């Protein structure tokens, strides 16, 4: 018995192509070098009726892109060269091309923005472009790739800062950590295969969401449902995609979807407030298989989680069955849709170490690649002129889990009275885990 709190809208006319009253325009935007690569991959894998836009400072990369629409940033500032890894330059270059960006994004209802963070264009221009995309009240979903930890502290910090800014502007951000690339490819594989696998993951996610929105299936999930799922909490999104064929395909497809690196191994799914599940297959999909998928999924999900289920039939799938799971973390409080703030409102600045009294989670401050938490954690973002988001601050897991450490302002505990031990300018009486931040390691 499938327990679903969603309304079941059965679409009896699934054989015929169904034109929506207002066709949903989907745009896929690749920002920066990494973004363009992802874009090219999406094209390669095939996707129906989306507009592809490439935005970059580097003219050469732009020329090589397969996108139909291209915007060059910083025509006079960077003159066709890249930013050299400088996000401030990236931002300035984007500011130069604001009108062009606006015009190319206009009319999009759903805008996917793909970018790689840590360098100049993606990190610097990304947040601004996202902001511009939101101007027309589109649903903006960002796919961001985080640098390898071996790329160095500086890039990781730049990436973290940008990620925080993106989270505050976009409806949802799906974060892909390069460090997890090892999960996609065997160590023996060629490195180009590893990168290709990463691009493939992002492409799969974009394609399946686009698919879900454009092709109403047997059980339909609407654009507004997806908006409801994504526009809440602190905009951290999870996505998993799995495909399988053969006898046990339902179970296998779901397992693969949960194991997806963008899904964080299904751990955080338990904390999700909403989830969208889309099952797609050829005409051979059975009710039994749907049941298998949903029952197993329910095991990973909290009782409170609201599930939107969709089923799509696509004869091109043949014998394959695919499962896509999209959800967002957060407490479900609805974020007010912000009127777009003034254009200069997102200055780029590298943030200093997290200030203790806003309660960053020190456990997450140390970079541990196989930990489920995303490296940057909640970092205060100074966005001039923007009011209170309605976000609820640091992510609080539901009470049944172990209590998470919270930082206290410079407490010395039992050493409060007495001469402090000061070595090399640091007061060693203050707990080390409070003083440590990604800078010292």
């Amino acid at each position, binding site marked *: 018995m499938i327990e679903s709190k969603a309304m079941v809208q059965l679409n009896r006319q699934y054989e015929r192509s169904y034109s929506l009253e207002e066709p949903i325009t989907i745009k896929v935007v690749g920002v920066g070098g990494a973004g363009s690569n992802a874009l090219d991959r999406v094209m390669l894998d095939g996707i129906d009726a989306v507009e592809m836009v490439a935005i970059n400072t580097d003219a050469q990369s732009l020329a090589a892109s397969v996108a139909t629409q291209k915007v060059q940033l910083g025509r006079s500032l960077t003159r066709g060269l890249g930013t050299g890894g400088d996000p401030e330059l990236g931002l300035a270059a984007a500011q130069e091309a604001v009108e062009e960006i606006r015009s190319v994004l206009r009319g999009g209802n759903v805008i996917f923005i793909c970018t790689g963070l840590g360098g100049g264009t993606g990190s610097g221009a990304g947040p601004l472009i996202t902001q511009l995309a939101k101007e027309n009240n589109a649903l903006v979903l960002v796919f961001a790739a985080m640098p390898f930890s071996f790329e160095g502290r500086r890039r990781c910090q730049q990436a973290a800062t940008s990620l925080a800014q993106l989270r505050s502007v976009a409806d949802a951000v799906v974060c892909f950590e390069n460090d997890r690339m090892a999960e996609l490819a065997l160590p023996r594989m060629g490195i180009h295969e590893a990168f290709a696998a990463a691009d493939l993951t992002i492409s799969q996610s974009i394609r399946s969401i686009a698919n879900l929105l454009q092709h109403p299936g047997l059980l339909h999930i609407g654009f507004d449902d997806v908006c409801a799922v994504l526009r809440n909490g602190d905009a951290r999104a999870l996505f998993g995609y799995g495909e399988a064929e053969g006898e046990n395909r339902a179970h296998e497809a779901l397992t693969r979807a949960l194991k997806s690196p963008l899904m964080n191994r299904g*751990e955080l799914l338990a904390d999700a407030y909403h989830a969208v599940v889309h099952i797609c297959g050829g005409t051979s999909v059975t009710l039994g298989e749907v049941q298998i998928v949903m029952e197993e999924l329910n095991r990973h999900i909290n009782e409170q989680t609201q599930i939107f289920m969709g089923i799509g039939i696509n004869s091109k799938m043949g014998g394959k069955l695919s499962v896509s799971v999209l959800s967002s973390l957060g407490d479900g409080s609805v974020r007010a849709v912000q009127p777009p703030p003034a254009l200069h409102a997102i200055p780029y600045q590298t943030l200093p170490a997290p200030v203790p009294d806003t309660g960053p989670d*020190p*456990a997450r401050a*140390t970079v*541990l690649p*196989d*930990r*489920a938490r995303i490296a940057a954690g909640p970092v205060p973002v100074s966005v001039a002129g923007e009011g209170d988001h309605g976000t609820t601050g640091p992510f609080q897991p539901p009470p049944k*889990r*172990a*209590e*998470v*450490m919270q930082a*206290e302002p410079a*407490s*010395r*505990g*039992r*050493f409060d009275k*007495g*001469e402090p*031990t000061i*070595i*090399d300018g640091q007061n*060693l*009486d203050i*707990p*080390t*885990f*409070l003083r*440590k931040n990604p800078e010292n390691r």
Partner: protein
Amino acid sequence: MAKDNIFAGLEIGTSKVCVVVAEARHDGTVKVLGIGTVPSRGIRKGEIVDFETAKRCVHDAIVDAEEKSDVDISEVYLGITGGHIRSFNNRGVVLLEDDREEIEEHDLKEVCKNACDVSLPEQNTILHTIVQRYYVDGRDGVLNPVGLFGKQLEADYHIVYGIGNRIKNAIRCVKELDLETTDVVINSFATAQAILDKNQRQLGAIVIDIGGGTTDYVVYVGGAVRQSGVLGVGGDHITNDISIGLKIPTARAERLKIEEGNVNLGTTRPDETIVLKDETGFAGREVEREVLNQIIHARLREILEVVRRQIEADQKSLDLVGAGVFITGGCSQIRGLESLAMEVFSMPVQIAHALPIAGVTSAFENPQYATALGLVRYAQFMHMDRPAPRSIFGRLKRFFFA
């Protein structure tokens, strides 16, 4: 103490006060007669902060040791530590007068005095001088210059100094219990006496004693002490960190550290938790094991890194250490410390305890007693050997009992 060759070592530590009574035999071995130990109160970071309480603890420890060893203790070798202690190396020179050709004992005192003739920061006095090597007429490798012919005697010393008043507190504490302080020894040096054998000292070794209130370290190169130091950070800091981080009372944190403490990161399954039982015995809170480990790891890594930085300040030291790092003290028992230290120092690491001694067998295996046992070894060494350090007591008398 009627017999000449029974010694008592007293270590007034932050977590425990320990008295070791031992007999030094003529064949060079040491036999432990008894160990008195009492949990410490009134001591923080290795220094006395509550005189009366500390005195009572010392008294209890002495009584305990006397009962166990059946010896009346009248004088002790006192171990000292404290974050204020610093050290440096210096050379002293003495030229023999024209009419003399043979080096005599009093020349050793002279050369030591010469080496110690340095200006120290205010309130600081020299606490301990440890001879490194002698040179006669510029020639190195002289072990005992007394009786040799020569005109010029030089000697390198490792000089340890600190704030005089803080040390006076400990000495007065002992005095008020009707005990004499035969000698005052830096804890790190004493620990090394217990832990290292001659070979290891010759090859070069680093001894790190991570105790409750302080971390004491000493570096041996070529058989002589080259560097030493004390950090005012120890096991209590780890407990404090845990207490603050997990929001549990100190006593609970201390138990958690001892029972479940582990420095290794990434070895636990995600969400593996430790259940803390509350007073009634039922399961109280749960804490994530990984979080506990991270707290401990961060603190211990920092301690080791600071020690390493301080040693590296004298450029060549680390390269000259052949036998590796020896870690002892109560905190050395934390699981996983060995590999962390190996990572920090990039050389072999051993979690060490005192070398085997006759007598109470388990005594030397407990790293907490390493320092006190070392004091006794030092006493034995002093008693057998006669050169310069004997004069330290005279010097001390001048500084402290003036």
